[in-house]
């Protein structure tokens, strides 16, 4: 997809974590854009094309597989004022993500081979990250007729989803799951009962009552998680549940996994970092869907991440223009950008003892790659050299003005966080370096 570097690179002395395979001080040798070897005291032996070897000193740094994000919105085609594939992948690289799955809710919706090919072509030209399109489940994401899922698959889609327009008709969802089985494609659902959530703009609870905002009950998510699990059991399909936000969802998925249902689940950094309290003052930067929930839900999400019920950390990177978020709360669009803050917020879970460093890395790399069968998220010999070098100790202040994303909509502006991407390599090519790096 992206031109690889022919340069030989040797990343020396870093703490290498390749989940389930390596966790310790090691060197990483990259040749012809691929991982050549990972081990102690490697030498490059002048194998480079010109005999030159670029040495990267990674002492006191983490050397990890490039992160994999199963859930981003790059807004192109249709909403290029919010984000383009170029700016979105630049944000990905800055956040350490080398593989991203972009949702189909563009204009037009990605329900055809042509749109999928357009996205892949834009991504190839940008060259900042590998982009894996997610195709629509139904034509126009209208929830009525199946999209040409076989064509989407052939064109390069790695999963199907109607995203923010969840398939409400259970029969249509059943058929989609059955049909997707033919291609072994994961079916993603944004679990929301649109009748229960209608008109709602934040979590239903004491804060929505105090603010006089219409709430979305946790049950709006739980009901659909439950339906989807039943359909996954019925059809045997690969089900992936997007951005779980409620304690009920976590409980349902835990029980389903115990019974052997094929399901994977993701959680977003904002859902394990913030509660509905962030909405006070009618803060539109805390408006997202699913909404920020109550404290108990946040604890349940963390427990789900800890015990493996939730496999994946995904960002739901959702750029919106500043003026859109300046509207009154009910009118403002849902979502926040997440690619450039995800790592630091995930490392908080390590500080808190919720996750080990290795399991945190797994939820950003190997686990998402496995969920969508992507050949990514590992440092195994022979794979594309997608690598992120992280300074785990660097503290920094989140400043949206410095984002690579076109949009600035984050509730984390001004937060002092720890752990920062030092450099990102895509196919052995440096696609991002923090200003102090190298």
């Amino acid at each position, binding site marked *: 997809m992206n031109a690889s570097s022919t340069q030989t690179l040797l990343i020396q002395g870093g703490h290498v974590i390749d989940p389930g395979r390596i966790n310790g001080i090691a060197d990483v040798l990259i040749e012809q854009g691929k991982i050549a070897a990972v081990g102690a005291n490697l030498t490059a032996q002048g194998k480079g094309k010109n005999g030159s070897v670029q040495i990267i000193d990674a002492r006191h740094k983490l050397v990890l597989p490039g992160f994999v994000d199963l859930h981003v919105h790059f807004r192109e085609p249709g909403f290029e004022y919010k984000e383009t594939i170029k700016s979105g992948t630049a944000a990905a690289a800055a956040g350490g993500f080398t593989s991203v799955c972009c949702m189909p809710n563009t204009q037009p919706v990605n329900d055809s081979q042509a749109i999928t090919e357009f996205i892949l072509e834009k991504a190839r030209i940008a060259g900042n990250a590998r982009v894996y399109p997610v195709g629509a489940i139904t034509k126009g994401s209208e929830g009525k007729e199946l999209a040409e899922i076989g064509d989407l698959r052939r064109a390069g889609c790695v999963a199907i989803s109607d995203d923010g327009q969840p398939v409400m008709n259970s029969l249509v969802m059943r058929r989609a799951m059955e049909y997707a089985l033919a291609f072994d494609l994961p079916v993603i659902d944004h679990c929301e009962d649109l009748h229960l959530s*209608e*008109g709602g703009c934040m979590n*239903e*609870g*004491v804060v*929505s*009552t*105090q*603010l*006089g*905002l*219409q*709430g979305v*009950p946790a049950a709006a998510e739980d009901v659909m998680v439950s339906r989807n699990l039943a359909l996954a059991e019925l059809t045997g399909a690969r089900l992936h549940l997007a951005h779980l936000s409620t304690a009920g969802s976590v409980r349902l998925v835990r029980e389903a996994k115990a019974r052997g249902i094929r399901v994977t689940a993701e959680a977003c950094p904002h859902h394990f970092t913030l509660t509905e309290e962030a909405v006070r*003052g*009618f803060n539109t930067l805390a408006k997202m869907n699913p909404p920020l929930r109550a404290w108990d839900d946040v604890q349940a999400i963390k427990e789900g991440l800890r015990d493996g019920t939730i496999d994946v950390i995904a960002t739901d990177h959702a750029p919106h223009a500043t*003026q859109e978020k*300046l*509207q*009154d*709360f*009910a*009118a403002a669009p849902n979502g926040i950008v997440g690619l450039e803050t995800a790592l630091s917020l995930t490392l908080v879970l390590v500080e808190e003892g919720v996750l080990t460093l290795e399991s945190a890395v797994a939820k950003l790399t190997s686990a998402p790659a496995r969920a969508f069968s992507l050949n990514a998220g590992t440092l195994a010999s022979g794979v594309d050299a997608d690598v992120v070098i992280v300074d785990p100790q660097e503290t920094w202040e989140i400043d949206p003005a410095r984002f690579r994303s076109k949009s600035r909509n984050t509730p984390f502006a001004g937060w002092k966080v720890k752990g920062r991407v030092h450099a990102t390599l895509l196919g052995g090519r440096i696609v991002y370096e923090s200003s102090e790096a190298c």
Partner: protein
Amino acid sequence: MSLKQKDLTGIASLSAEEIMQILETADSFKEVSGREIKKVPALRGKTVVNLFFEPSTRTRTSFELAAKRLSADVINFSPSNSSVVKGETLLDTARNIEAMQADIIVLRHSSAGAAETLARGVKSSVINAGDGWHEHPTQALLDLFTLREKKLEFRGLRVAIVGDVAHSRVARSNIYALTTLGADVRVVGPPTMMPACIERLGVKTFYDLDQGLQDVDVIMMLRLQLERQGRALFPTIREYSRLYGLTTERLKIAKPGALVMHPGPINRGVEIAPEIADGFSSVILDQVTNGVAVRMAVLYLLSGAGN
């Protein structure tokens, strides 16, 4: 004398002392409305803009009268004749008004939080004249003023708020105001009209009107907002009226001499029987009269004219 804050966006941010300060200031302004020449020069040279995105006759008129009796210049601005329909954001509209040196913007908007959003974005003082289901602070203040005028003590006062609490900014502002002043507040209505966790706001909930009216000193009836609801929160108006309409019989359950309030406009025969609305228990028209005095007090205190 003035308020510490630039704006009045809600009762939730007011202390008991601040509420009492507004009511005491309103006392002196009520006298003005009884004069032959109903005018004082307190806000001469100040500009008050009524920015109403939702239709309202009584609140806008009340604010307009209040501002005029204080000798302010008043402009009424409503979306039908403004650029709002052309896609201008609320904040841009307000900044344009501010650029014309408006001292106070009185905002009515269908979205909760609109007043707070506006207050953060402009230097002018902002008075919330109702934002979605969030707050309607001057309504609660005029209700308090009316109760106080009837010589009622707030501490321990038992008040029932009856009706669609979930979708009522009047209910929220009154709950905040009355609980801050130590009243014993209960809400009465069908569960479909009770917002989540309402008891965390310090009130008791009753689904049965007869039980809810036991020993209450004050009954605040809410308007059944037929025009606002896209969903049936109750099967029929007939059944709602039978279960939650205030009748002469039911009024007897409350304490003798209990007062009946309503923020208007009333649905006669739906939430309140006509003979109660017009009867001796009703203070509905006192509320309207007092609205002007209370709004004069709020305009005066926020203008800093007393400094």
